[in-house]
């Protein structure tokens, strides 16, 4: 059977979908050229990350390691077929055929078949627990074997072998490494470096046996197997893992007449063409200038060269840098360029700190002008700098040894600015500093943006620190301009808008937009403006003119959940609640069949209220003495407290009373982000106040005030701000801190980030709040007092206004509820039905497809 594909496009068939094969596809798609692309993968899954294979043992799954999926390939229009092992290439008719007999015609064929692990021809190497380390299937087999073993041996002390040893050690095995050469990592390290690495690895509990040639694997006495060595010694083990190097998978090329090297590898030219100009080879199966490259970066470079050739673009493969930096079992190891100093006339500097286990070697040319190579063991902090010197042939400073000596102040650091635009930052994806600058120029304004835009540091990850330096330096240069505008409608920060609103007495969004913005606004600037109006004028949040500005949570005074229902959270100041109120909460939850959960802020959250049910629910709550908890708002959420001196044997102050007073004072404040308080009655800190924006801890003499802590995504411990305060001073300081924050912070900036970004940080904040350095403390207090005085419960006001209540309808022309909101019961309460559950309950009308 022959599948014919649209003939007008050039047909590209790629055999193999490893990291390099996938990179080729990605590059070809990015080139925007019009090809018909077919990927034939011999494995049962599409490309995954082999560089991080060992992370499989620390909990990563096959899905985590995946580099792509069928959906992505479909979106790209790539025909990807797994389990499609090719066993025939008909070069004269340009057709490949898989083991299942399916044929694929090609105009250009790409061999990206990778390599296979070399297993030394040792008698006994084919036994059940003799394994290799290459694919996810191999890892599954290793896991299974390790589960039935106590001792494991890795044959091969190279980079991959040590990775494998780490995996065995992580699996809890008594682990050994057997190496034929006199040292570990003989390719990348010199003898001294290899010896130091061996010491370090042995101190971590892995036995290293160098200069051991295995002669046979026989049945063991204490363990499953016995390995017999040429020197007469032996080692017993339950499993053997071969990691003694790779061999190019060039069988297809051999079988169908392409030129291969004497010791294997498909011979390619600078365009990655094989001896047949319609067939390319890339990655570990390819032999370029008699070299096989077993790292991912050179493979990627070959993929790019092949794409360039196919699209008639510029770019050839010109060899690749084999420098590596990695952490082996926690030991930092780096190798750059000519690590052995084999270049004629090369000179060497070494630094060896035996007690600390650090060894550094710097290889320079005869004139001491350029770096040729380096070895770093135990400390690779100089790696990035040395690599830049090597790759970009940067001239060495006067005293080159300073580059590897421990920094005693005068270390010549190669900052991001010392690099030219052509300097390569990420060699895996060939990203230069210029590319990064371009990305930032065209709008990337964070490390994450730059990464997703340029792909820098998404390969081996070795350049991540350097990338961050460059991005930080470039952003810093233009930081002000980049982050200034709140959105496309205003070229101002939130703080600037705050001042404009206050100074020009602006109280509607239209006025603000007409005067200072453009367009119609959006979901970023509108809620920000609403929050500013609320802070400055303390306007009722549902005022008609402000209504369209609010996020749905503020409009409906509840937190929207995934199914479009809302949660109901009444305020329980300080976490103190009477039995009657608790019963009322239960009654309301029961009547409206709401899911009930205790929150982390010492109150009760009722879930599953439809928008049309909210007013009736809140009417019951308000009538029973509750008020809104502002759980939906950027404002004070809760003041958490411990039970304090009233009941606790250890409490020294009434923390509950204090918490209730504070919560009632600040409950109406609208701020750039949510604010949480905690009050602890003694130093045991049961209220976790130091994890809050405002934390108060009782002392024998009063209260210690902590500021700018938070939990959440990036927890921050609050800083001690003032000690032994009396009640009045405590409130005064909190007034000032919060009002200053509300006026000067950016949109959605928590107090922690706000303070860290204040020039002068905590000391500056103290000078403003305690010493009144800006002379604004009276104004800050007056503004806070004004907000406290004009507080109103938004829900109480809402349910008293027929006009406002009109908003709480799903449909303006029908009283029906939203039929998509459906619940099922789990653990005796409701939860949203999944879509499968919803459709299962519906009568499905059969449809005939014609």
């Amino acid at each position, binding site marked *: 059977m022959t599948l014919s594909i649209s003939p007008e496009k050039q047909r590209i068939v790629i055999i193999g979908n490893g990291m390099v094969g996938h990179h080729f596809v990605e590059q070809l798609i990015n080139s925007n050229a019009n090809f018909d692309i077919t990927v034939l993968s011999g494995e049962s899954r599409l490309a995954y990350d082999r560089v991080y294979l060992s992370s499989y043992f620390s909990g990563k799954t096959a899905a985590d390691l995946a580099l792509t999926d069928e959906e992505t390939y479909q979106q790209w229009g790539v025909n990807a077929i797994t389990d499609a092992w090719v066993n025939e290439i008909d070069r004269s008719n340009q057709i490949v055929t898989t083991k299942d007999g399916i044929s694929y015609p090609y105009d250009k064929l790409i061999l990206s078949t990778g390599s296979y692990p070399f297993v030394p021809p040792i008698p006994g190497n084919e036994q059940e627990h003799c394994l290799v380390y290459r694919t996810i299937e191999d890892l599954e087999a290793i896991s299974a074997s390790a589960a039935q073993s106590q001792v494991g041996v890795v044959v091969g002390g190279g980079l991959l072998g040590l990775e494998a040893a780490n995996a065995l050690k992580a699996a809890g095995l008594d682990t050994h490494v057997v190496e034929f050469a006199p040292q570990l990592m003989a390719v990348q390290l010199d003898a001294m470096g290899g010896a130091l690495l061996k010491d370090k690895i042995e101190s971590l509990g892995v036995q290293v046996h160098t200069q051991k040639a295995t002669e046979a694997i026989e049945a063991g006495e204490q363990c499953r197997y016995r390995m017999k060595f040429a020197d007469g010694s032996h080692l017993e083990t339950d499993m053997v893992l071969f990691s003694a190097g790779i061999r190019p998978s060039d069988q297809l090329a051999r079988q169908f007449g392409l030129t291969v090297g004497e010791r294997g590898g498909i011979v390619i030219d600078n365009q990655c063409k094989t001896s047949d100009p319609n067939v390319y080879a890339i990655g570990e199966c390819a032999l370029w200038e008699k070299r096989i490259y077993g790292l991912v970066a050179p493979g990627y470079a070959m993929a790019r060269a092949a794409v360039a050739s196919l699209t008639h673009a510029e770019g050839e493969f010109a060899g690749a840098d084999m420098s590596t930096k990695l952490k082996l079992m926690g030991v930092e190891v780096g190798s750059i360029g000519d690590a052995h100093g084999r270049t004629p006339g090369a000179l060497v500097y070494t630094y060896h700190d035996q007690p600390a286990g650090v060894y550094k070697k710097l290889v320079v040319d005869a004139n001491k002008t350029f770096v040729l190579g380096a070895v770093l063991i135990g400390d690779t902090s100089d790696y990035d700098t040395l690599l830049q010197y090597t790759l970009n042939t940067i001239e060495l400073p006067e005293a080159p040894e300073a580059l590897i000596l421990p920094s005693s102040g005068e270390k010549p650091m190669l900052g991001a600015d010392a690099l030219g635009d052509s300097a390569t930052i990420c060699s895996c994806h060939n990203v230069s500093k210029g590319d990064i600058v371009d990305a930032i120029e065209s709008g990337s304004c964070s490390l994450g943006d730059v990464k997703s835009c340029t792909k820098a540091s998404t390969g081996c990850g070795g350049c991540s620190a350097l990338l961050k330096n460059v991005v930080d330096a470039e952003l810093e240069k233009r930081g002000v301009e980049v982050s200034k505008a709140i959105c496309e409608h205003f070229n101002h920060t939130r703080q600037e808008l705050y001042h404009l609103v206050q100074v020009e007495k602006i109280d509607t969004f239209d006025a603000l937009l007409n005067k200072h913005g453009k367009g119609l606004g959006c*979901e970023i600037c509108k809620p920000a403006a609403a929050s500013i109006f609320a802070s400055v004028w303390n306007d009722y949040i549902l005022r008609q003119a402000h209504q369209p500005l609010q996020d749905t949570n503020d409009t409906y005074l509840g937190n929207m959940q995934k*199914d479009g229902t809302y949660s109901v959270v009444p305020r329980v100041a300080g976490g103190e609640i009477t039995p009657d109120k608790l019963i009322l909460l239960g009654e309301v939850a029961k009547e409206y069949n709401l899911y009930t959960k205790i929150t982390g802020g010492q109150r009760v959250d009722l879930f599953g209220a439809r928008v049309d049910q909210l007013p009736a629910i809140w009417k019951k709550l308000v009538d029973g003495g509750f008020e809104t908890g502002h759980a939906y708002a950027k404002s004070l959420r809760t003041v958490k407290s411990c039970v304090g001196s009233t009941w606790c044997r250890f409490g020294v102050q009434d923390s509950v009373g204090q918490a209730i007073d504070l919560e009632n004072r600040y409950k109406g404040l609208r701020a750039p982000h949510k604010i949480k308080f905690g009050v602890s009655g003694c130093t045991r800190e049961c209220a976790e106040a130091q994890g809050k924006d405002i934390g108060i801890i009782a002392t024998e003499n009063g209260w210690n005030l902590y500021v700018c802590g938070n939990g959440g995504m990036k927890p921050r411990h609050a800083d001690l701000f003032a000690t032994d305060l009396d009640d009045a001073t405590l409130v005064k300081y909190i007034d000032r801190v919060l009002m200053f924050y509300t006026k000067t912070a950016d949109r959605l900036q928590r107090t922690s980030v706000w303070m860290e970004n204040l020039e002068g940080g905590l000391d500056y904040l103290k000078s403003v709040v305690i010493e009144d350095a800006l002379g604004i403390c009276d104004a800050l207090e007056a503004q806070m007092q004004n907000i406290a005085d004009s507080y109103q419960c938004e829900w109480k006001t809402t349910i008293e206004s027929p006009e406002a209540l009109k908003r709480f309808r799903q*449909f303006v022309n029908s009283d*029906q509820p*939203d039929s998509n909101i459906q619940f099922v019961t789990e653990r005796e309460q409701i939860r949203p039905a999944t879509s499968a559950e919803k459709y299962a309950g519906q009568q499905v*009308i059969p449809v005939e497809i014609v």
Partner: protein
Amino acid sequence: MYAQAKASTSWNDVCHVNELVTNSGVCVLVDGIQIALFDVLVEGKHQYFAISNWDPIGQANVLYRGIVGSLQGNIVVASPLYKEHYVLATGACIEREDVSVHHYAVRVEQERVLVAL
């Protein structure tokens, strides 16, 4: 999902124009279909839009509760769930090329809002 395709469009009187909220959305139910109606004031003139109320990414009937605004010249609503933007005139999703929502013709006549299905 079981609505039959109609042979011709028909105008449905759905509500009084006073029910609309300027620069925001409301929702109407027509033949079992939820339609989000928006009244946007552009340079002093009211423009009316009607799109499906179903958020195809968040999988809930919530689009009328989004914030209305403009993005690169398009009048859009931001989904209240995950903030994707839908162009009110076409239903196209700005963040996801492969996602869009239905849009419907809408007009106001003698203070009544009419939607074509």
